[in-house]
């Protein structure tokens, strides 16, 4: 039972000091969780602390790869707008707005 940080992480340091098991460490290109230490905060807190403060949707996932903070859940940005923004960033320099 352990969470994982993926490459959406922006290295903001918010999660690191909160981990009751010191499982989170700064690494390149992004922060990592030591799977041997992470308990998903069981016994310490009701919510996984890293996922409770992480500002980036999708950056922290469980063992199944499911995001604890799925798109739109933190920013409140409608999914359609998120998709459009991702589309225009992925495309060429073409400006849609």
């Amino acid at each position, binding site marked *: 039972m352990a969470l994982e940080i993926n490459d959406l992480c*922006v290295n903001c340091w918010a999660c690191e*000091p909160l981990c009751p098991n010191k499982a989170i460490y700064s690494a390149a290109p992004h922060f990592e969780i030591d799977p041997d230490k992470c308990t998903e905060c069981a016994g310490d807190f009701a919510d996984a602390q890293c996922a409770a403060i992480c500002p*980036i949707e999708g950056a922290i996932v469980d063992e199944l790869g499911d995001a604890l903070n799925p798109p739109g859940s933190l920013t*409140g940005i409608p999914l359609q*707008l998120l998709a459009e923004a991702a589309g225009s960033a992925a495309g060429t*320099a073409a*400006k849609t707005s």
Partner: protein
Amino acid sequence: MELPVISNTAESGGGGCSSHSCGSTADQLNQIPDEILQKVFNHPCYSEDAHHHFARMHVAVAPACNIQCHYCNRKYDCANESRPGVVSELLTPDQAAKKTLVVASEIPQMSVLGIAGPGDPLANPERTFATFQMLSEHAPDIKLCVSTNGLMLPQSVDEIAKHNIDHVTITINCVDPDVGAKIYPWIFWNNKRIKGREGAAILIEQQQKGLEACIAKGILVKVNSVMIPGVNDEHLKEVSRVVKSKGAFLHNVMPLIAEAEHGTFYGLTGQRGPTQDELQALQDACAGDMNMMRHCRQCRADAVGLLGEDRGAEFTLDKIAEYELDLEGAAARRAEVRDRIAAELEEKRNAKAAAPAPKLVALDMSGLATKEALRPVKMAVATSGGGLINQHFGHAKEFLIYEASEKGVRFLGHRKTDLYCTGGDTCGDADTTLQQTVKALEGCEVVLCSKIGYEPWGMLEEAGIAPNGEHAMEGIEDAVMAVYAEMASAGKLVETAEVPAQSAA
């Protein structure tokens, strides 16, 4: 007819702060103890005289944040402190302290250090206070400032009071949780993420408690607000009243900057920022009557050096690591510079005081139908300091905005030319610098400068702003009044239906 130059007076006429709405009448000022006023008036960030001479810098040591603002993308610096989209180099407390000491050795005018984003300094108390600790020890003459979203302020006040912290800036965008719910999607509080109105209510409560606690400890508090049209613009007048009644010495309103490219909630949902005129009107209603306070530059957190210059690139980490500090020598040089500047400022003030009624500007109204009310006019001035019109239009990074009316000249504030996106790859087909400058001068009818080029001249005229280089090297207030008088005699100022007086109300 004699026209006084209105400086710190409470009664400001058209467009000014009406004492009821923003609570900064003379009464209000009287609540602020003299020594605090003194502190503020000599502060490089707030004194028009002083800030041309002193330098300040910010360092980023505190990357984590404990709330989310709808105008912030956390890939970048705290948008409360920098323009959106800026990324500062993250330093360890050791590096930050050393960098500050190196800058303070190389630039003896260095007098203020701020800890700013990315992140909230008080969400990272160890790193923030470790930096302050080292600096209080090695350079006690440098003023320290901390800016925060306020969530952890009540818990941090005791620690703040222990350091050489000159003032605290809290970004307060609302005092009503319903408004807050539209600005802050969540906060992190007691080991939980709390969303919506409930989170906003806690944040507001903490901000207000923190503000009160700082005041009770004698710590200066400045309040920043981000103006979000349709969300908190009207509400900010209430915010202003509340924070001032609790003792904040300045309430500073900044414009929302939201672009889809920033990937923020406001950027993607098309929330617009205020126009220069809307911003100025609200700033006018909230800044209060203390002219000097209007000189707060909302300085960009990523710049190093004197106002308007950025020497950040000179101080790379390599250079800092190698640099051998001579703390005593540097402190002595700073003391010398400070004394010299103090003497100069003193001399200037005395000269001003000695000059025969310099604050009175005669406006010859003879031959005019004075029964008719003249509308006030906003003018922009390009200056590099000294109270003179002495800057080339093209060199101005900011303009001072004055309002001339029958009552006299009133300083309204600054407008920066680079406030909005500067183009480049993130902004696509952005405006040219010149277009931006013209946009920044919206609402002004005249721009006074020492010289101006052919191209900008044309563009300004097209935008309905009259360029004027005839008053080069003259005192600003005299020149503004002279131009106003000219306009009056040319019959341009009589209130008519098709020229709405935007600021009179």
